[in-house]
């Protein structure tokens, strides 16, 4: 399980995360909510190791990973779908997916068929350059790419942004299936999901955390969540 223990993160002098703690367990979807600029992305990047934390600790599967580089974390089974897609623009769709082989042992370097089932458009565009795809297509590619690494912890930063409604629904279903370990290719997964779209989040979340100004102000099991409390933090 993922354990984040009072981390602090700075951009220069500005304090972006203030003593944030959070945990995420396999089999459960943890939803992080919050208005623009409260630090959700910063938190995800800290988990992935793309942004160094100043103090505090992050552990995953019992191992302290606070000082590990991002690629080492990927090797420990953490997969990342960043905000803003971050597609390798000049690699083809296939090559983008194949970058996901990096942390895998030789035998596992294949692209699971489930990926194409979920995002059929990718299959038809295997040879197109990632950067030429439409925004939504890129977003789908970003999710697919993370899945190729067979993560045990999946971090999704606003994965539905720019995606058409029908596929959003599919993504929701898949996240559920992944968390529950229903898809053979992936074990039972811990999912951390950043989402602005409250209904979508509510439907999926097992646990939730609400952030405001760099702090976690509300958290708990989704079942115990009071919608109005949360909404209060989401309005301006």
């Amino acid at each position, binding site marked *: 399980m993922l354990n984040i223990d009072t981390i602090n993160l700075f*951009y*220069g*002098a*500005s304090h972006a995360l203030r003593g944030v703690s959070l945990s995420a367990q396999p089999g459960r979807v943890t939803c992080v909510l919050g208005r623009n600029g409260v630090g959700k992305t910063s938190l995800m990047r800290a988990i992935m190791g793309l942004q160094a934390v100043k103090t505090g600790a992050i552990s995953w599967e019992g191992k302290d990973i606070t000082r590990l580089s991002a690629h080492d974390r990927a090797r420990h089974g953490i997969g990342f779908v960043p905000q803003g897609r971050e597609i390798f623009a000049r690699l083809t769709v296939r090559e983008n997916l194949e970058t996901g082989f990096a942390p895998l042992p030789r035998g596992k370097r294949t692209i699971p068929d489930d990926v194409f089932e979920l995002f059929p458009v990718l299959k038809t565009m295997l040879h197109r350059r990632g950067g030429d795809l439409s925004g939504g297509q890129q977003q789908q590619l970003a999710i697919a790419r993370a899945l190729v690494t067979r993560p045990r912890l999946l971090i999704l930063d606003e994965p539905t942004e720019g995606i058409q409604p029908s596929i959003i629904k599919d993504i929701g279903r898949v996240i559920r299936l992944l968390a529950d370990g229903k898809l053979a290719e992936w074990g039972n997964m811990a999912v951390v999901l950043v989402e602005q779209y409250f209904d979508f989040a509510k439907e999926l979340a097992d646990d939730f955390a609400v952030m405001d100004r760099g702090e976690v102000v509300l958290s708990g099991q989704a079942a115990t969540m009071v919608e109005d409390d949360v909404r209060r933090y989401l309005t301006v």
Partner: protein
Amino acid sequence: MTSFSARLLTCGNRRLWTGLAVGALVFLVLVPVLNLAVPVDSALHLPNYMVTLLGKYLCYALLALAMDLVWGYCGVLSLGHGAFFALGGYAIGMYMMRAIGSRGVYGNADLPDFMVFLNWQELPWYWFGFSQPWFALLMVVVIPGALAFVFGWLAFRSRITGVYLSIITQAMTYALMLAFFRNEMGFGGNNGLTDFKDIFGFDLALPSTKMGLYLASAVVLGLAFLLARFIVTSKLGRVMMAVRDAESRVRFLGYSPTAIKLFVFTLSAMLAGVAGALYVPQVGIINPSEFSPANSIEIAIWVAVGGRGTLIGAILGAFAVNGAKTWLTGAAPELWLFLLGALFIIVTLGMPKGLIGLWAQSKARLFRRSAVTEEKEARHA
């Protein structure tokens, strides 16, 4: 134009004007006094060669300033600015060649020496007019400006950007270098133009002429600084920076990056030409090696060392690098490349914003400024 002078006066804050006054005091008063009024054997005396040296640095600083305007603010890395500098230099050089008259070694009043011994019979047409000082002075800005305008118009219109632009500017200066090397061109080939005797009637060998040239360089640099300052603090300056960051986005706002870049590029080339024209009488020679691509790269290096995107930084960089070069080539002739190379690496690794950034950093440490304001400071200093 009154609004212009009003804007000019308000384009800086008090700190800027004090800084400028101090600069003027040092370069326009202190240096001449130390050189002329203080007795030669005094420890405070500034020897003549230092005056020439400083004059040369001032020209380099002007060149760096011109470069910074296009590169630092507009994001156009020209690797051919040496060409504009050299063209300005050739323009004034041609005038000084003509001013030699019959005092050349062959005593030919109509032709410069290098034409005489290569058997040229008459002066090529493009030399006409250069016996007139006003014409030469005009050409100092017109030739580099026209070249920059035509070149820039072609390039910016076709949306050549980034390294593609840098490389074709390099190709331009390289082609000019080869062309000027050709003796058939009538610019003295490899040796270029030398043996100058006087400029506007003043004997170049006299220390007073040198002092005059030095003072002229200082004044011109000061004026150019004000002009540049006026531009970068204007809204145009901010559009320039926007072009640097995201040119295509600027287009969608309705500005024409082509026109803006062309304006800045041409202006910058003219300033570079003026720098060259001040430089040549002070060093006494202009030849095609000034066009060499390495020279143009070096200009970019001065700017980067001093701090790209800050006017003072560019000037500082020109002084620092050339000062280091003067000092090291004498003090450590066999090692200076190591030291200079190391300086470049240290500056890039340790001072991402150049020497000027170092100053801002230390100040920020004192006042605990936030990272963001610090960067703004560096840009507007």
